[in-house]
């Protein structure tokens, strides 16, 4: 779709919203209704957006009814089941607790015998692991990855999460970050904050601390504190 087309479509989207919000003057509304009769494309888009509004309201109502039709015991069972699932996952991490203590002990030994550089390596890569799941993949690309772009990003983010192929992964993410952060809208714009975040985490895990700080600094300029990602970047930067 070229620039003039997208502008027209965006204007039409806005008119459909204004109509549904009752924000048109009587004259504008009459004109809009006339146009709906003669312009099949506009009519289809308007019906579709109205269906979206109604569908969301109905989906919420169904959920409220589901709560009403369920007893407290069942709610507790649902919560316990999913809590157990997430605890099982968490336990896999918690089981490493003694190992973590050993790692702390090892880091002290490293400080003594290898010096600051060894400790810094441990500290940096640990931070990468600690913050790796601040934005779970399900949070970024939920459901099935629909496009090749989403599939590639899912794979790259998964590599960062599992610390696999970090060199290749960060190299590719660095290319995508350059595209995603551009002012002009492109295929990666929507995913820019998560591309930047995963690139920084990948660098930390790969002990590329300076590169991570550079990306996080760039991100801080784009995503100010007060936003979810801005706040998370702020927390991580304080620890670096």
């Amino acid at each position, binding site marked *: 779709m070229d620039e003039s087309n997208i502008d027209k479509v965006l204007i039409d989207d806005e008119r459909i919203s204004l109509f549904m919000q009752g924000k048109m003057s009587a004259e504008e509304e009459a004109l809009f209704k006339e146009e709906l009769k003669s312009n099949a494309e506009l009519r289809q888009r308007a*019906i579709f957006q*109205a269906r*979206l509004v109604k569908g969301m309201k109905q989906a919420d109502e169904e*959920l409220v009814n*589901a709560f009403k039709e369920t007893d407290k015991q069942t709610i507790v069972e649902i919560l316990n089941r999913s809590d157990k699932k997430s605890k099982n996952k968490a336990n896999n991490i918690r089981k490493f607790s003694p190992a973590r203590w050993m790692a702390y002990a090892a880091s002290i030994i490293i400080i003594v015998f290898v010096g600051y550089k060894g400790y810094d390596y441990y500290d940096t890569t640990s931070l990468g692991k600690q913050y790796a799941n601040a934005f779970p993949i399900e949070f970024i690309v939920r*459901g099935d990855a629909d496009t090749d772009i989403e599939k590639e990003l899912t794979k790259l983010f998964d590599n960062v999460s599992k610390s696999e192929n970090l060199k290749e992964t960060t190299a590719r993410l660095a290319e995508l970050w350059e595209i995603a952060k551009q002012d002009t809208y492109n295929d990666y714009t929507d995913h820019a904050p998560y591309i930047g975040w995963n690139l920084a985490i990948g660098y930390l895990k790969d002990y590329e601390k300076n590169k991570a700080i550079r990306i996080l600094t760039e991100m801080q300029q784009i995503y100010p504190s007060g936003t979810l990602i801005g706040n998370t970047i702020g927390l991580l930067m304080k620890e670096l």
Partner: protein
Amino acid sequence: MKISIFKDMESSLLERFDAAQRKKTIAFLHSQFSISEYDCEDIYQDSFLTLYENIESGKLKELTSSITTYFVSICKNKALELLRKRGNHTNLEKDVPDQNDYIFLDDRVDYLLSLDTDNKEFIEKKEELVRNIVRNLSSPCDELLWGYYRDGYSMKRLAEKCNYPSENTAKVTKHRCCEKFRVKYNEMIKSLF
């Protein structure tokens, strides 16, 4: 007395809601309030029960935003309560949808839907299809479409919330989400009916 025949169907809807909310809400609380994951899990469980109790007791009479937004606001309040108890103070960003200005009016929505000339049975199937799709949107369409069409956020506010460089970028993305949705919806209509 609950109707047991519906129990499985209702609980599966609730399980899906829980599955969709748990991980992202805990991650959000953890990063927004710097609370441990264990505490975030407790807040999540507590909030889920509060949501249930508010619906059951009739305290929640009418939803003015999506149920997800309402649920997250319960979680935020509980997180703030915990921080207050511990003597920590935090400034929470203002996150109130720009309501009243951006509410979609039922009569206008119904007017547009009346332009669909398909028969009632077919329309009901279409509505069911839409409900299924909107429940399973992926990010960023999930945040943008629910935020705009259900929560009453302005595009400017959504651009800020979703970290877009400009309101226009958010508008273009919302439009692309609508188109993506429309293509999926039309394909499913064709294959199902």
